[in-house]
């Protein structure tokens, strides 16, 4: 299946501004940063979580712990797939018990990744609450899950694909929308 990039939705500046806004919303919603930890979902959620932590350090002078979570072991489609997805790293710098956990991911789509992440976090302990921050919410939910913090809402068709690119992995910061090429 071939994908053709159709348009850039966010550039580097737009992503930076969205992260600054989300960082401020996190402080506002939690009335500070006490007990807050950021957990980036492997892979692209993790660099986004690190950047949120950097912004919070600059604006609030607080070092918010950043964890990384791989949700492969909690996927609901493992027994349906023909190949096993590669298991990525999970690193939690602090115990999640009684913490305010902010899950960070690049795109919110069906909600199944977040469902898996909720199970993974709760297996490690009982947090005070869990919140969700995403760069892009593209709709088409298949589970009753919503984001608390959204960089940008992008209505999409299910044929389209959203690519959030981050410098740490992709060499540049941008969000593009692509579409499956019709081969007929």
């Amino acid at each position, binding site marked *: 299946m071939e994908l053709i990039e159709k348009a850039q939705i966010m550039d580097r500046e737009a992503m930076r501004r969205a992260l600054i806004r989300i960082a401020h919303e996190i402080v506002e919603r939690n009335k500070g940063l006490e007990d807050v930890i950021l957990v980036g979902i492997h892979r692209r959620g993790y660099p986004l979580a690190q950047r949120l932590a950097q912004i919070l350090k600059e604006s609030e002078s607080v070092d918010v712990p950043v964890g990384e979570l*791989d949700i*492969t*072991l*909690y996927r609901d489609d*493992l*027994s*349906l*797939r*023909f*190949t*096993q997805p*590669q*298991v*990525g*790293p*999970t*690193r939690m710098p602090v115990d999640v018990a009684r913490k305010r956990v902010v899950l960070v991911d690049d795109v919110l789509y069906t909600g199944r990744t977040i469902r898996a992440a909720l*199970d*993974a976090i709760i*297996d*490690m*302990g009982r947090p005070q609450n869990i919140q969700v921050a995403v760069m892009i919410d593209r709709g088409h939910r298949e589970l009753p899950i919503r984001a608390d913090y959204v960089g940008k809402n992008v209505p999409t068709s299910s044929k389209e694909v959203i690519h959030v690119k981050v410098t740490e992995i992709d060499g540049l910061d941008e969000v593009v929308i692509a579409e499956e090429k019709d081969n007929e």
Partner: protein
Amino acid sequence: MTLRGQDLLSLQEMSTADMETVLSTARSLKEILSRPIKKVPTLRGKVVCTLFYEPSTRTRTSFELAAKYMSADTVSIAASTSAAQKGETLSDTARNLEVMGVDVAIMRHSVSGSCHFLARVLDIPVINAGDGMHEHPTQGLLDIFTILEHKPRIRGLKVAILGDILHSRVARSLIFGLTKMGAEVTVAGPGTLLPPYIEDLGVKVFRRVEEAIEGADVVYALRIQLERQNKGLFPSKREYRDFYGLNRRRLSLAQEDAIIMHPGPMNRGVEITTDLADSPRSIILDQVTSGVAIRMAVLYLILGGRE
């Protein structure tokens, strides 16, 4: 990713790419062992059967815990308490387990090649947990995994394997795995315990352990298999200790940061002195922890996905 549904019978037959996949998966899964609640739901509904025709503490427990941490169900058959005592053949026992819905069979057996035989009899994947004097592939993988936790890479590493090479399936798997990944392997032991043509596997052979240890990054002492030792292959335990046992004097010939390994169970004071076994350079207990992570990875890669 070609391991799904496959047997794991030997490292001789395993590709380097597949070994790398197991090692990197184990690296990720090891985190689960440090959790307060050691359970992920990944293999829910899968049934893992261990079939042990030889005694074992470490390997069987390690496989069973690995399966349980991944939420698989386990059944364990020990030959001493099974229908094998009534004369049932191996293939009959295994076929019966298969039709009860077991998803993978893990076998240890005293006959070399028995796991290959079982793999031909059964449709489900078979994992070799040690077959006679042949191979013990998950031990080889966990040894390589443990070395990589202490050394940056296998390529170019000098590994000395000491002792009873003849009877050791651990040595055989380790030699296949390490040489494929580019290590320089030397072996040494009493002439009676060095199999002829072992150099054809790409290792350097020495009669004196000092020569093998010289400059080594890893020193691996094998267990003297006293249960297979009634043939007079060496005069006494004491003489073995004096000429082939790992001690401080011999270790001083290795690299300054050389690490010490042993597959267990140890005969303290025979193949390795107690002070070395418990020294900071010994990573013998790390090997045991790695074993659970490696077996979780192997079960995940073989049982994940669908036919």
